[in-house]
């Protein structure tokens, strides 16, 4: 699986939510694109990840 350009092989099967929480992402400050499509926040716990998936995870930081 490709995550922000890096090849990562998590233990499948895994949901997007578990994958993100395992990597200490704060789910309230991120946006995730999977295979070119935004993943709706409400579906993180249902989305199953596959080895051919390409993820872009954006973590927002404060300031503006």
């Amino acid at each position, binding site marked *: 699986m490709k995550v922000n350009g890096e090849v990562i092989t998590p233990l499948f099967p895994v949901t997007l939510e578990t994958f993100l929480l395992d990597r200490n992402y704060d789910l*309230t400050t991120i946006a995730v694109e999977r295979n070119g499509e935004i993943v709706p926040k409400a579906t993180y716990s249902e989305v199953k990840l596959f080895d051919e998936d390409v993820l*872009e995870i*954006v973590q*927002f930081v404060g*300031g*503006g």
Partner: protein
Amino acid sequence: MEQINNNVPSQSEIKETLIERHTKEVQQRLSNGKVVIAGLGGLGSNIAVSLTRIGVGKLLLIDFDVVDLSNINRQNYYIQHLGLPKTEALKRQLTQINPYIQIETKNIRIDEGNVVEVFQEYEIVCEAFDNPKSKAMLVNTVLEKLPNSKIVSGSGMAGYESSNEIKTHRTMKNFYLCGDLENGVEAGFCLMAPRVQICAGHQANMITRLLLGIEEE
């Protein structure tokens, strides 16, 4: 006291001057452009000034806050604006730059429930909040619910690290992210005019490019 010139140029005088500077083709697109700016702090206030200077036709300015003394180190407000809603303080300044662009203001807090209603008629959304949760909420909601909109967002402009770390990234098809992506206030960095303005410049230029039909970052 210095004399202030109160002769307001006519609409056609301003238009002709902008065409002379930018060319007719470019100016036509900018004048037909409309952009919503969510958050009028260090990013939003400076982005609004840039877009007004180049004659973008219509701006919707959104913020719920008032101008505070602690804002002045980086936000485009003056002592005379202290205590005023940021929407009103900014509108007054923009009118001094170009009185003929359409400026709408909304003094409201944006949440998941009102994004579609407030933003749906704008194809270009500028995210300029300061709080990372609000940034994420707006970006996620616009990308999920407004598939025809493009959003230009800012993340990572705190401190006084190198200017050159700040870049424009086309992170997703309709999502442009400007900043160094790392240096936030939560890491203990302060927010200061120079670097915040660099990020605001990136966002304003990406918005300009989108208005001119250029989608590359």
